């Protein structure tokens, strides 16, 4: 009899890695829509451009590594990385910036470490951090939020022209803006209250940022609901940001931003739901996730408040990526039948 002989189990849940990734892609849609709506076609163009680059590079490097190309491409992980990176970049970042970013993310941060599952650092954040350090001007040049269909907004083709070098962005003063975080950080001698009134992006543009954050939260809740990740990391991270910001804001509201600002202006929500939850680079046990998320939140707050960079999601995530294996060692769950959880390499309890 020619029957299949395999080991148990003989049934399998109908969810594959590709399904998980597709869910993540789906969950980025609201944010993509919001970004496009408020910041113009640039984000959409970037997302598509980055995805194309990612697929191309992934295919090339898988081939170079002599692995079945289609088999690995089908897990969608490259596209997810690319889209997250593209969403984090300024909407009108030049084409080569995206190219460098995707290259760093896919080739260096992911495949040079052994491919999906082996990379210790979140590829999108490695790329983002590298770009931020190497090209600080381009990386902080955000356009003023407008409404897509408003007058003055760049049309689709103009946007393509800007991104792919047809137009010099610096000539359009629309592109000399800053992010709210940036503006708040470099507000000169202004108190926060003055800054809120006087700086345009804070006074008028903040709504767009709130909307984008809300879109990320929506996507995140969708993923939570679909059990793509657990609540531990986002919640711990947001809590770890909120608590110190409440304390410091209450103590010195002139120098520190309010908690709501921390949570909604900038990459916090994206980081909480789409970056920090990247399972490959996060801590693995539920308890570990709490520590991991809290670490990220705290680091973001610290860097934002006292560091040189206006936003800090990338750095905070990368730093905690470093700590994840360590956290894992010390947060093993207590297994059934054991009185104590094991800790550390040797498993002392």
């Amino acid at each position, binding site marked *: 009899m020619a029957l299949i*002989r395999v080991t148990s189990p*003989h049934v399998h849940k109908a969810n594959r890695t590709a399904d998980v990734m597709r869910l993540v892609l789906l969950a980025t849609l609201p944010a993509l829509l919001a970004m496009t709506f408020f910041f113009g076609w640039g984000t959409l163009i970037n997302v598509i451009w980055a995805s194309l680059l990612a697929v191309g590079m992934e295919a090339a490097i898988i081939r170079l590594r002599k692995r079945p190309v289609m088999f690995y491409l089908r897990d969608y992980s490259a596209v997810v990385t690319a889209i997250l990176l593209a969403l984090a970049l300024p909407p009108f970042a030049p084409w080569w910036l995206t190219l460098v970013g995707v290259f760093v993310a896919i080739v260096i941060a992911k495949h040079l470490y052994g491919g999906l*599952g082996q990379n210790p650092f979140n590829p999108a954040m490695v790329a983002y951090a590298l770009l931020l350090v190497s090209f600080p001007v381009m990386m902080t040049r955000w356009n003023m939020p407008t409404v897509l269909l408003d007058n003055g907004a760049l049309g689709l083709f103009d946007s393509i022209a800007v991104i792919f070098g047809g137009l010099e962005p610096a000539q359009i003063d629309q592109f000399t803006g800053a992010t709210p975080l940036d503006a708040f950080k470099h507000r000169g001698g202004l108190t926060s209250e003055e800054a809120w009134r006087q700086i345009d992006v804070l006074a008028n543009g903040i709504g767009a940022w709130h909307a984008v954050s809300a879109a990320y939260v929506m996507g995140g809740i969708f993923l939570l609901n679909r059990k793509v*990740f657990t609540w531990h990391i986002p919640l711990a991270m947001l809590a770890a940001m909120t608590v110190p910001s409440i304390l410091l804001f209450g103590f010195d509201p002139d120098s520190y931003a309010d908690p709501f600002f921390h949570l909604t202006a900038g990459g916090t929500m994206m980081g909480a739901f789409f970056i920090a939850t990247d399972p*490959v680079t996060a801590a*693995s046990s539920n308890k570990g996730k709490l520590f991991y998320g809290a670490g990220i939140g705290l680091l973001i707050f610290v860097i934002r408040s006292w560091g040189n960079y206006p936003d800090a999601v990338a750095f905070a995530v990368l730093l905690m990526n470093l700590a994840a294996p360590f956290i894992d060692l010390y947060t093993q769950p207590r297994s059934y039948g054991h009185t104590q959880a094991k800790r550390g390499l040797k498993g002392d309890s």
Partner: protein
Amino acid sequence: MGKVFAFHGGIHPPQNKQQSTGLAIQPGPVPKTVRLPVQQHIGAPAQPLVTVGQRVLKGQLIAEPGGRLSVAIHASVSGTVTAVGMMQVAHSSGMDALCIEIENDRLDEWVPHAGLEDFRSLNSNDLADFIRGKGVAGMGGAGFPTDVKLHVGDHHIINTLVINAAECEPYITADDMLMRERADQVIAGIGVICHMLKPSHVMIGIEDNKPQAIRALQQAALGNRHNIDVVVVPTKYPSGGEKQLIKLLTGVEVPSGGIPADVGIVCQNVGTAVAIHRAVAHGEPLISRVVTMTGDALARPHNMEVAIGTPFVDLLDQANLKENQLARLVVGGPMMGFTVNDDELPITKTTNCLIAATWEEMPEANPAQSCIRCGQCEQACPVELLPQQLHWFAKGREFDKAKNHNLFDCIECGACSYVCPSEIPLVQYYRFAKAEIRKEEAETRKADHAKKRFEARVARQEAEVAEKEARRKQRAEAAVKAQAVKKDKLEADAAKPAVTADAAAPVTDIKALKTAAAVTRTKLRQVEKALKNAENKGLEGVETLTQTVATLQTKADAAQQAYDEALNPAAAAPAPVLDLKQLKTNAAVARTKLRQAEKALAKAQDSGEGDIAALQARLTEQQAKTELAQAAYDTAESGEAAPAVAPAISAEQLAELKADWDAAQAKVAKAQAALDTAIANESPAAEKMKAGVAKLQAKADEAKKAYDDAASPVTAAAAPAISAEQLAELQADVDGMTAKVSKAQAALDTAIANESPAAEKMTAGVAKLQARLDEAVQALQAAGGAVAEPVVEPEPELDLKALKQQVSIMRTKLRKVEKAVEAAEESGEDTSELVADQAQLQQRFEAAKAQFDAEEAALVARAAEEGVDLKQLKIDAAMARAAVTKAERALAKVTEPDDQQEKLAQALEAAKQKAEQLNSTLSRFE
């Protein structure tokens, strides 16, 4: 209804249970033959009691339990035993196992059997024995001997009985149907268990997807005298895992590595409860069970009550298998079952389900992708392990880390594999890692054992070397002393060129001399003390002691002198090394010369010619010399043989002592003969020779005494040092055996846990090892009172020789028949009978040869395990034997002169000893 707790993780795979619950439990097919594996349970295999051709009745005991942890097997049909041998069985390993095959005569003739009228009148011991006699084993999964579980012993107090009715695996409905239809039997079975365990609380854990069974149970339990709770738990795989169910029902966790009884709980499956009831109430052994036949490839899936041993194909037929649609045949459930590709395999006591799945139903797994550390496995694991970490560790062969991450708590439930989006066969990785770790551990244990043995051997060798060295020193010392004594004695005889102490002193090793001097001094002091003591107390033997003191004083002086001389560079001139051998030779030479002188004198006297006076003088001189040499030798030798100074006596030394004794006896005989001749010749030397004989006799007696002392367990008790080394050796043996036994036991346990078919063999091995260990322990105990009996090898003789003989006999017979056949063919006679004979003989020969080969291979393996190269050993032994023969021949050839003969005799003795030693080592393995 009790409160339900929760366990971490779990999954909700599609139930697929409704397909097989449409029909009531049907009677199973009537098999043409049944195949009954002797091991359908955890533990030792049962021992077959039947032979081929024997007629057996239904329910007759055909294999008895092969140990405490074993289960009896009964005939499930009446008929004739057609085969007892290795056959394929349904096991995940796919290996063959010992089975008994019975051809069904369809008479359905039962052995007389009867239940217990009132089981409550029996105590739990007897009841356990009764149930044991009925071959009941756990029917839920692993098949643990039920009587063992029901008789947990005094160190466990059972307060809760958990009846596992969860049946959490998809597809399986055997327990469900059993409860629906025979709830009263379940409850009756529980009554028996309660009587035996006396729990204060009984909980039946059942998943909420079996409403009918729940109702039936509740009804049956109504008004029961026992405190029975039907606890409905949410449907979640693996709630039917023993540990998970216990957690669900009681909130208690069974400690890692422990059993439920450790926390006062015993868990039994509903099917087992029914089997217990049937055994107790009707005396029916466990010869049938309910099996779920399901899967999309069956047109008529349902549950059936099947005779154990019925081949799958009969069941599939009854369930109307759509042959062309069958893609996978799973034994057990879809989560933990295993696949088989042969439908002739038999149903066993633990087979609860057969899934005949179509391709669409259970498609082949997709190739595994990379782990994305999504953590879903971790969320699903009921043991709260970190499956993805374990997977990384297993993949990277970091087994230590895997172990630290509690790999061995994994119950291989498959929940993690089920949810893994990358479709990684996680459970397979864990099985692999577990197997590797077990292998590694076994190897470490082996290495440890080998190391221990090696160290013991090195220590022993070192002790031997030290001992030899000590003996050498004593000899040297004795020689010095002898010389000194002789010198004193012969001082008056100035005419005689006595061998001076200087010339004869074996002064080579100053250190040795120093030690010798020190030793002598110490002895002297001891004796002095004893003397004082004796004097004080007015004891007897003061005189002897005084004498001894004097002698020792002389000795000490001599030793000191020798040492001083040796220290003095002038005296330390290259002195000839004079050892025992040389002394012996010297004595022999002197004797020869004496004899020659005697002869010459006799000749001269006879012929009346020559200078008789001169010859006489020469003879006297020679006699003195001979005596001197002999005395030197004797003293030296007796110094060696003296048991009081022997620091430790090993078997080898014992042999040496014996040889000494023999040699001394031979010498006495020789001397006596010489004396006789001398007397007959009226030789003037006769007088002196007489004294010599007497001396020799005394020496022989001494040697005998030394030997007896060493060999006798009573006198040697006074010399605890003698057996210290042997004790150590025995201890090492015992330790080694203990380690072996525990190793084997551990291996056995693992095998049992794995349901390995090798377990049965291993069980026998363990028993054997245990027996050997007992022997070793006994030997050690016997030696514990400083018994100096020679090391008795506790290994029982394997009948290798007999086997070998048999093989050769067979071979000879076979050749004969072959020849006969040839001859018959040539002469044109009828050869058919002879040919048949030949075939039979060939078969027997082959069987014998195979057995012999196997034994021998086992031996070699055993020897290798003990660090001995059996082949090399054999060669060595053979060579030693050859050396003995050679030496014997040489000795036979040489009749004179005397000293050469003596040397040869010595060589022979040595060769014999060596051969003996090697043989004894060899015999340990044969």
